[in-house]
């Protein structure tokens, strides 16, 4: 909330908040226009999810998971993936529970866990230097450290893959380590997979729910906003076994009851279009990640030219970079703030470029570990990246 206000200034090149400034595909916009003129689609639909949408979701995900998914009992449609996280946590987490959160983390996980009365237990991804170029794959969990975080109070672990902000795509082996612990300690897994389609060459998104023993204890969360570049539609979904989803449905019927109808219908139609071409490389699920890979590589190149060493993400549309190597003089700014907060404020004011400080994504203990990093969002149209290029190319020439 804090940083979106600052970056609303149009003179600032906004690579901060994670929202696309590229257009959603035209057929997605058309489907919404078509839905809006149908009278009954302007009134309430089924609370747990518009029938045509849950049907489409079940087809798409059955194909990916290789498992039967009942549209009425195994799926809940929510207000964005955010709403799914909230429903899941409110349904299954409470006072006395511990929830493991991997740092850095999407910032809402911690307050949502606290709001449910539970205790967040943090474990950081740690950088393992494997040579010259930094990749998101270099950031790993220490299996022994992770195992130590599990105890009899652990109710769930929150997994985010592809990962925001680092862009890490957890490998099958890494997921197996987590899965083994979940099964051993009888824990739930809340798997935030909103960037599931955004994986770059050489990487594969794997759903932890498809690992043996995991379907029964996993809620998998997805997002229309991230799938179709329509963050303003605020539609997301939770998929899982009925004995878990039914509790999310209870939360949903006591919080907002139903999601907007025309948006759900339009989304359903868009999914059918892409479901039919899931064998075709032109399917938006694949074409978007190809488009973004080019932007990723461009962003990385621009940062290198300033003398920075960006962490190349294997997935997602964010890139983090250690800015302490620039040795910018931030002594004038508030000492108490973490380094990255000060850097971003300075960068916004003097370079008219915005990003997000990484310590926003950390628990209190780890802020020092991540405060050298800032996060850039690269799901931006060419003109935005061009403007960023101008700023970055002139970086060393301008006085501070």
């Amino acid at each position, binding site marked *: *909330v804090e940083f*979106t206000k600052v970056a609303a200034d149009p003179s600032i090149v906004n690579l901060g*908040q994670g*929202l*696309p*400034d590229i*257009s959603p595909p035209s057929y997605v*916009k058309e489907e*919404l*226009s078509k839905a*809006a*003129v149908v*009278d009954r*689609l*302007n*009134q*309430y*639909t*089924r*609370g747990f999810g518009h029938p045509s949408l849950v049907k489409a979701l079940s087809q798409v995900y059955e194909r990916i998971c290789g498992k039967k998914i009942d549209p009425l009992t195994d799926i809940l449609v929510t*207000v*964005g993936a*955010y*709403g799914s996280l*909230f429903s899941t946590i*409110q*349904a*299954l*987490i*409470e006072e006395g529970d511990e929830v493991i959160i991997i740092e850095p983390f999407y910032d*809402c996980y911690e*307050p*949502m866990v606290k*709001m*449910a009365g539970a205790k967040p237990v943090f474990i950081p991804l740690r950088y393992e230097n494997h040579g010259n170029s930094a990749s998101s794959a270099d950031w790993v969990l220490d299996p022994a450290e992770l195992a130590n975080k599990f105890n009899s109070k652990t109710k769930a672990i929150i997994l985010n893959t592809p990962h925001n902000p680092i862009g890490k795509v957890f490998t099958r082996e890494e997921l197996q380590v987590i899965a083994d612990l979940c099964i051993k300690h*009888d824990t*739930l897994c809340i798997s935030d997979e909103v960037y599931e389609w955004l994986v770059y060459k050489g990487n594969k998104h794997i759903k932890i729910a498809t690992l043996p*023993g995991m379907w*029964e*204890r996993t809620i998998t969360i997805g997002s229309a906003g991230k799938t179709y570049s*329509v*963050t*303003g*539609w*605020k539609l997301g979904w939770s998929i899982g076994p009925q*004995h*878990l989803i039914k*509790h999310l449905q*209870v*939360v949903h*019927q*006591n*919080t*907002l*009851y*139903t999601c*907007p*109808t*025309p*948006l759900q219908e339009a989304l359903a139609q868009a999914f059918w279009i892409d479901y039919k071409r899931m064998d075709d490389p032109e399917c938006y699920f694949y074409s978007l990640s190809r488009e973004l890979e080019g932007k990723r590589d461009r962003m990385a190149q621009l940062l290198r030219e300033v003398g920075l060493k960006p962490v190349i993400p294997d997935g997602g549309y964010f890139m983090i970079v250690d800015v302490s190597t620039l040795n910018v003089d931030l002594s004038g700014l508030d000492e108490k703030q973490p380094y990255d907060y000060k850097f971003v404020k300075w960068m916004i004011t003097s370079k008219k470029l915005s990003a997000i400080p990484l310590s926003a994504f950390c628990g209190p203990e780890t802020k020092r570990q991540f405060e050298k990093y800032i996060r850039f969002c690269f799901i931006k149209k060419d003109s935005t990246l061009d403007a960023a290029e101008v700023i970055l190319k002139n970086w060393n020439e301008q006085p501070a």
Partner: protein
Amino acid sequence: LLLLKASNSLSLSLQAKMSRPLQARRLEGIDKNIWVEFVKLASTYSTVNLGQGFPDFPPPDFLKEAFMKALSRENHMLHQYTRAFGHPPLVKILAQFFGKLLGQDLDPMTNVMVTVGAYQALFCCFQAFVDEGDEVIIIEPFFDCYESMVKMAGGTPVFVPLKLKAPKDGKLMSSADWQLDPAELASKFSKQTKAIVLNSPNNPLGKVFSRGEMELIADLCVKHDVLCFSDEVYEWLVYDGKEHIRIASLQGMWDRTVTIGSAGKTFSATGWKVGWTLGPNHLLKHLHTVHQNSVYHCATVAQEAVAQGFQRELELYGKPDSYFIQLPKLLQQKRDWLVQSLDAVGMKPIVPEGTYFLVADISEFKSDVPDVPNSDEPYDSRFAKWMVKNKGLAAIPLSAFYCGAHKNNYSHFIRFCFAKEEATLKAANDVLQKWKREKTSP
């Protein structure tokens, strides 16, 4: 059979693996939901659906046009996140529009928050202000989510009934005949009382609280330092020249009231799920906290269209072309139509002063659905289920709007929604007429 047993026990053992309680305690007692059940019944059996509260006629043309216009704009950023606490054009026009009506200078950034329907506005209020140990006064009959939301927040609902005073002989009952007993209401306020929920115009009865009744409630709120959550979603649907009074505009109430509104009910577009809260910043800032930790943003394009809708209404306010004048005029006719239909067959309607709901006494039709002694289910619920399955006519039992302990207090009433096309109301009339004929003929 053996294989089936084996796979059953395997899945059971996987489920049983979660050996401690799975779901959170806050879900206790709130898992049942009348709408899930009755909406399913209506979609399966009904030919004439006067059950769930939504119009079967479209939103007004100007609103649909606003939506299409928003989509056709070159700027595709309407498909991306907007401001979390409310799309700027919408909060600005809401502040302008309601500022006048509330007699307050409203700041769009701090006195207005947009929500996913009025439902989510209610949720934010209960989560923000109600804690374990707090009591919340709910006037019966009530929109059913109030009770479960209080419970989910860990609070204790305290009920006070509207009581039916028999009308003069020969006259039809009116929603105005349902009244609070002032002494009884006063007795419900205690040191633990955190808030009272007011719903005027009232769903399901259609009661429009008078100024005197509101002042009674306001005095008690001030005296006991209690908050008021004022659900005013049907604010434009008042008939017979009655006035909708906003309790937040009464003496001492602005600082302790959250006023809730709904685009779905205002503009006959329930599927858009756009609602709002209005109130002082010291209350709204806590709603912000809940909102940013639960949904964060509301969908952008519908907010843009609703803003346009309000802009039009601001310009036409008080004029005959205003939708806020046309809609109640249209609905009053439909109300009168349904009143006539029901009265003609012996179902006794309680004429509503507001909303698009009407409750009727179905005692004369009791013979069709025999009493089942010691049944857990209230009579009117069994009656409504029988009626949708056998007559194809969907309505909602009044017991749905009472707490568990009081479900049998008024057991022969069902609620009809009359925000329906003429054809639908005509079809309802046909069903009722045929039913009556079948009863009277040998």
